[in-house]
């Protein structure tokens, strides 16, 4: 049986770029690894580094393993609709893929919504930026696996993310009974100011 397509998306954000990560995922050794994991396509959104990345890809074209296609592009209007859906498993025609992302909240929320495993690579060069903090939080809560921008670390992360994905299936089952996914949490539509009298009554009762 021919292997089903399995897509990997790398995204670095539209404005700043993340050359370190772009460099690492354009490494032929990383391509070999992806190919051995059953990936058939690697698409890299590289923002402002696009001209460098496409030149690099052209020069390495001969090293692309058989059965894997590698593409680079600058950005797209709607990353979720245009690219992430291509990574999503589809009944009998595609295996569930993977997103490797900078720690931008938009991308992470999109990947969560689509239902894709995520590897988060914080861009440590950005100062006064909450990427590292966000990545730590995501790992702690089990939303994603974090990695550094090095292809050997990424390989380890890809192994780990598959395990995490199996765990999360029970945590966030599709078609979960509504309304509460996070117990004790609140819903936007239920938010109303507290009445002052009531609160003061409660305080007096506590005193």
């Amino acid at each position, binding site marked *: 049986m021919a292997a089903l397509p399995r897509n990997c998306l790398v995204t670095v954000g539209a404005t700043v770029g993340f050359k370190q990560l772009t460099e690492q995922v354009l490494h032929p050794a990383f391509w070999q690894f992806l190919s051995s994991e059953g990936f058939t396509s690697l698409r890299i959104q590289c923002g402002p580094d696009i001209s460098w990345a496409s030149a690099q890809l052209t020069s390495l074209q001969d090293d692309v393993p058989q059965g894997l296609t590698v593409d680079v592009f600058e950005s797209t209007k709607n990353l979720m609709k245009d690219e992430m859906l291509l990574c999503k498993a589809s009944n009998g025609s595609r295996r569930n893929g993977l997103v490797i992302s900078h720690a931008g909240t938009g991308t992470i929320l999109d990947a969560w919504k689509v239902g894709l495993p995520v590897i988060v690579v914080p861009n440590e060069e950005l100062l006064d930026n909450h990427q590292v903090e966000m990545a730590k939080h995501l790992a702690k809560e089990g939303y994603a696996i974090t990695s550094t921008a090095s292809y050997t670390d990424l390989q380890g992360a890809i192994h780990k993310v598959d395990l995490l994905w199996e765990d999360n299936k029970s945590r966030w089952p599709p078609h979960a009974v*509504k*309304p509460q996914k996070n117990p004790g949490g609140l819903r936007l*539509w*239920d938010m109303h100011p507290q009445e002052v009298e009531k609160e003061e009554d409660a305080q007096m009762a506590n005193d």
Partner: protein
Amino acid sequence: MARSIIVFSLASIVALGSAIFTITSSPRLLKRSTLTIVASGIALIIFASTRHIQLLSHRSRKRSTRRPNPNSQNDRIQRPPMDYNLFVLGSGGHTKEMLMMMDDGFCDFSHFHRRYLISSGDSMSENHLHDYEESLASLCKSRETSPGTYDKRIVTRARRVHQPLWSTPWTALLSIVDIFPALLVPPENEVGRKLRYPSRVFSNGPATGFFVALAVHLLKMTYIVPESCMKVIYIESWARISTLSLTGKLLLYTGIADVFVTQHQEVAARYGVQNAGEIVFNSRRLDDIEPSPAKC
């Protein structure tokens, strides 16, 4: 109390006006009328601060949200039979979060109007909004409920990302000029004819959110809008894990939000506010929207 404040402020405004008139008509009376101006100016300041403090004292001190009654069967706060809410959409990221928080499968929107404030030039938010409303409409259709109505208002952006702080006041002023009509002009439909003002104003972190809250506060200070309307509900962005955003800090320290919650325990504990949990993850996921049973 309220009536005396109004009389007091009207008197000071009249005094101020007549004093200015006297100055312009006869320069000889300059000294005396300057005194009147100073006196009535002070009176106005007293009025404004009294009214400000009065408004703040009417709010619950903790700015926390009401918890649904745990004993009630359906675990929900009853929504009024007719409602009109306003949502401040910021840049792409904020909009995405806001729409995810809204998209939690709730679909009881009959006689419910949603108004969205969108910053000028923010086509990304408009696209996201369009997708959200489309998906809500199909959800309501499948449940045979009404999706309600919505409209959009475009306002000048209060602060572009990375815009220097010193130039913010000017763009903010332009933004406020657009915000007032968006708050005051009722929607042109059945709901708008019954309800003049939105009952709640939701925001989650864009700078425009603070200016909307400020505009609401000014409208309430001047008795144009009753206090029972336009409750400002501020939900700090999910991206803020350990510190509040600038908008969040401004709203917290001025005290002009009616509800102030965060989505992470760490930041909630640091500022002594309520943690509402990660509300963004209430969102429906693609699997909830389009069931795809088989997985490989």
